């Protein structure tokens, strides 16, 4: 797409969405948000599948499409036999993901530097990422735990997306963000949007504002001086040490590697588990819940920013919703921001 030139806005009628998605699904794997409440997740489209749209973000994140909970890194044959190594084919896997929230897409861009580090590019992640066209839907009604604007996000943000779709009465207004998005939109052969539609889209996007505000200004720099701070003692007191927050976080990417039944598997892992850092000798550098919770917060708001220049949090609010004890990340950040360093 040529720089500086706004992409042509196209109009997608609400009642045609399903038939359009059905057409898309004929050519490519198509992921869409589906399911209710806690069971909502991205699922492969099939005709008649009810999309989750107005009811808020999916409980499970879009990262799972690119970084599944378990995947084979390679197979080696029988556990006891001579190893015959076979890796999954290194190929670009075409797919379309429709209905991501802007925060979901932004989270993927935060995982890219980890998996696509030029020294050791991870082809499993890369193959799926390069093949995927991301069609996001702007948030016109943020959920009660959202705080994307506090961490540099935007309810109608385009970062990481190929196409941004904004719901307006009766329609969706679709605009390409990348060349790939433009190509995808052109193939759909949609009518152009008029000025009224564009104005409605601006209004709809504005409705997404008014999110909870957490002041994270200067927090990464401050946290660098707070490793030994007494506040951690207090902050972790209620934390149960489960992995609900990390497993449902769109930017958490820690994993474990194990051999099982002839395959070397990569599985999700969590810094909240004691086993995560336990040495074979029995020594554990992060012995208690305090160290583990500190690691989670520090990783997102200090260590990652030191390496990548911005926090590894998109403010989607999932950790706030899923925490069994309502230990709210927003309050934790406010407390860290508030205490004397």
């Amino acid at each position, binding site marked *: 797409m040529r720089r500086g030139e706004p992409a042509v806005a196209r109009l997608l009628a609400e009642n045609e969405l399903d038939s359009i998605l059905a057409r898309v699904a004929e050519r490519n794997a198509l992921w869409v948000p589906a399911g209710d409440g806690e069971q909502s997740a991205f699922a492969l489209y099939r005709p008649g599948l009810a999309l989750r749209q107005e009811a808020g973000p999916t409980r499970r994140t879009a990262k799972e499409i690119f970084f599944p909970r378990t995947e084979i890194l390679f197979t080696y044959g029988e556990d006891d036999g001579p190893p015959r190594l076979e890796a999954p084919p290194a190929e670009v896997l075409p797919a379309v993901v429709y209905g991501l929230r802007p925060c979901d897409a932004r989270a993927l861009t935060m995982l890219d530097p980890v998996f696509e580090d030029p020294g050791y590019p991870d082809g499993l992640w*890369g193959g799926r990422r390069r093949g995927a066209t991301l069609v996001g839907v702007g948030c016109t009604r943020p959920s009660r735990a959202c705080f994307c604007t506090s961490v540099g996000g935007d309810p109608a943000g385009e970062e990481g997306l190929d196409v941004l779709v904004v719901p307006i009465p009766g329609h969706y207004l679709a605009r390409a963000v990348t060349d790939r998005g433009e190509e995808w939109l052109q193939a759909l052969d949609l009518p152009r949007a008029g000025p009224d539609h564009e104005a409605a889209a601006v209004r709809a996007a504005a409705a997404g504002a008014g999110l909870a505000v957490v002041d994270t200004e200067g927090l990464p720099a401050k946290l660098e001086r707070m490793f030994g701070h007494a506040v951690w003692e207090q902050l972790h007191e209620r934390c149960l040490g489960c992995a609900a927050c990390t497993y449902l976080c769109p930017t958490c990417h820690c994993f474990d590697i194990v051999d099982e039944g002839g395959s070397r598997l990569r599985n999700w892992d969590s810094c909240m588990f004691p086993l995560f850092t336990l040495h074979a000798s029995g020594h554990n550098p992060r012995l208690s819940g305090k160290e583990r919770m500190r690691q989670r917060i520090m990783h997102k708001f200090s260590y990652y920013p030191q390496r990548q220049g911005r926090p590894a949090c998109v403010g989607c609010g999932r950790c706030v919703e899923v925490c069994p004890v309502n230990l709210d990340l927003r309050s934790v950040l406010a407390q860290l921001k508030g205490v004397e360093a």
Partner: protein
Amino acid sequence: MNPYLPHLATIQEIIPETASQDVKTFRVVFTDPEIRRSFTYQPGQFAEVSLFGAGEAPISITSSPTQEGYLEFSVKRAGVVTTALHYRQVGDPVGIRGPYGNNFPYRDMEGQNIVFIGGGIGLAPLRSLITFVLDPANRSRYAGISIIYGARSPGDLVFKWELERWGERDDVDLQVTVDRGDDEWTGRVGFVPQILLDLAPRPDNTVTVTCGPPIMIKFVLQNLEKLGFTPAQIVTTLEMRMKCGIGKCGRCNIGSSYVCQDGPVYTYEQLRKMPAEY
């Protein structure tokens, strides 16, 4: 690209190190002659060693780049993978990927005296650099070489054949000590940090490289400071639980530093600025 896929290799030789055989050295050779040529590394780096069916573990390469054609790993039996490795025999296959991590700053050490201070299996990573600097092609680039090495008992000393060779050289000052001797032991008895104080190496134009159990490191660092060494003159190498070895799996960080990529070699000067979480 699949960075998790190891190269196949074969165990060529197994050398029992300690009396209880809880440490063994494994010499491995890549199956593919092309990999044998192209796999290059620096002293201080590590590799992920795979035992298919058991998993993989990060292990420092104890051989030196000056020794061509094979890699050596000295391994203490501790967890699932190292135990599986100890049950392997000559001719058995293993997987190797790497090399990973940074290396000892051997270029910066040129022209200086080097004091190696090792304890127990901690000599394994140091041995790569010791062999490297003692190599005829490199020896002249370094001034005095001293090695202080200790273990709990004579039976726990590793690389005995190397110790003998190093001891015979007149360009190496080797001091071996044990915490507790036995009937046959005629050498030094005492803890490494204390021997270090007794020997009192002078800090000028000298760099120290240390590796050993945490308690030894703690007192070695204290005593080096007493002897006038600055934190920048003290180099050490760390171990952490790792999985991927390439900065992705997220567990080996100390603060924002990933031991698998930014380490495992750190100067005490660097380490002092990092959170004490290792």
